[in-house]
């Protein structure tokens, strides 16, 4: 199908990758060695310089997945299905990363590996939801059905995210003694911002490249023995 024909060209993702890695190296260096330890949390605070950017970019990934799903359902252009596939996988990756980082942060801070923080718990729920959608995509062979179903499932899961967040927040507030992981509380925003952009470049590059992989497969599937 012609709509996928010009999907695979362009070196932009590669430039984004390189820029992203450079930014991350700079931001992480600053976060690890330049920024001073925080008043109460000591060195552990440094995890925030990588955790918060991951969180922001995960959110962006989910939003892009939702947008791709909606646009595909409206105009049926498989470019958007390819993008959805990319966004789903990369968002799942970032969600997984978030849960691990959050867990590593929680152990020295609260003494447990998981403290049911509403934000992190919502991420975990959406991680499973997206994993389910990725599994769904793997089990459906017909590209048209796969596209429509995963778009529908993505919309439903995304709509659920705020509901999950509030329900966990209320559920946890009955027991919660401590507040959620603090955002960066000192004036050293440099590592945070640089890492945020670095991750953004990586996120975009990953989604672009993964969408390319998807479009290549879609072209083969759609160019079957059908007449256009």
């Amino acid at each position, binding site marked *: 199908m012609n709509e996928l024909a010009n999907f695979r060209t362009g070196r932009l993702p590669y430039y984004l990758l390189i820029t992203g890695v450079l930014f991350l190296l700079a931001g992480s260096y600053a976060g690890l060695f330049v920024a001073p330890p925080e008043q109460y949390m000591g060195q552990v605070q440094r995890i925030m310089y990588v955790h918060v950017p991951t969180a922001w970019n995960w959110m962006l990934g989910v939003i892009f997945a939702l947008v791709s799903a909606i646009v595909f359902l409206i105009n049926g252009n498989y470019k958007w299905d390819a993008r959805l596939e990319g966004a789903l996988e990369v968002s799942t990756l970032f969600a997984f990363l978030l849960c691990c980082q959050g867990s590593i942060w929680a152990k020295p801070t609260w003494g447990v590996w998981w403290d049911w923080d509403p934000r992190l718990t919502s991420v975990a729920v959406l991680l499973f939801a997206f994993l389910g959608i990725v599994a*769904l995509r793997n*089990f459906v062979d017909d590209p048209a059905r796969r596209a*429509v*179903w995963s778009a*529908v*499932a993505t919309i*439903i*899961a995304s709509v659920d995210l705020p509901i999950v967040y509030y329900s*966990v927040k209320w559920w946890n507030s009955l027991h919660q003694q401590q507040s959620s992981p603090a955002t960066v509380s000192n004036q050293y925003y440099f590592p945070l911002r640089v890492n945020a952009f670095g991750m953004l470049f990586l996120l975009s590059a990953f989604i672009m490249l993964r969408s390319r992989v998807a479009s290549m497969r879609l072209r083969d599937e759609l160019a079957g023995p059908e007449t256009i």
Partner: protein
Amino acid sequence: MLTALHKELLLQWRSRAQFLAVLVFGAAALLLFSFAIGPDAQALRTFSAGFLWLGLLLSSTLTLAESFHAEMENQALEGLLLLPANPRAIYYGKAIANWLQLALIGVSLVPVMVVLYDAGTTRIASLIGVILLGTAGLSAPGTLYGAMTAQIRSRQTLLPLLLFPLIVPALLASVKATSLVILGDPMGQSRSWILLLAAFDAIYWSLCGMMFGRVVDE
């Protein structure tokens, strides 16, 4: 839509042996939970609401998968859609039928819960109300995903995989509300949980109804 509902209920009545099987499954689950926890009466009573809803959730995977079985057997799904009936009507017919069946299982499991976990309560009406709201939350997305997964292979694993993360808010709210009914609600918290459940139901009954047409479209 009423004809769709009527047909669904008729189907369910005809397969009431299946219903009994699911009920026994649910009761067995509740029994297993008590073995997993041990004979600690206090703990069992405290968590009885959680066990009830977990048992109900597990049973729902059987019920929901079953609800499209009849259509899939005879390619009847395409036949249904060829009728001049709105797919939305079909959806709501099925969803309501599933809801009623799940609610019935829930209510039937209450005596099991009372016996196994010493979790009796006099506020029967509230309990039934929570069960109705909670099972409605399970049925709406469950019917949609049931329709999807019925049409592909590996449906048994995929349905819970897709459904469970989604209904977390409904599960949380149902368990909390039920727990408050059984154990007492000194601070009047149940209202917010009921509202959450109602909101969840409203959102998903409309959203899934809208999407159903696309999901069974050929």
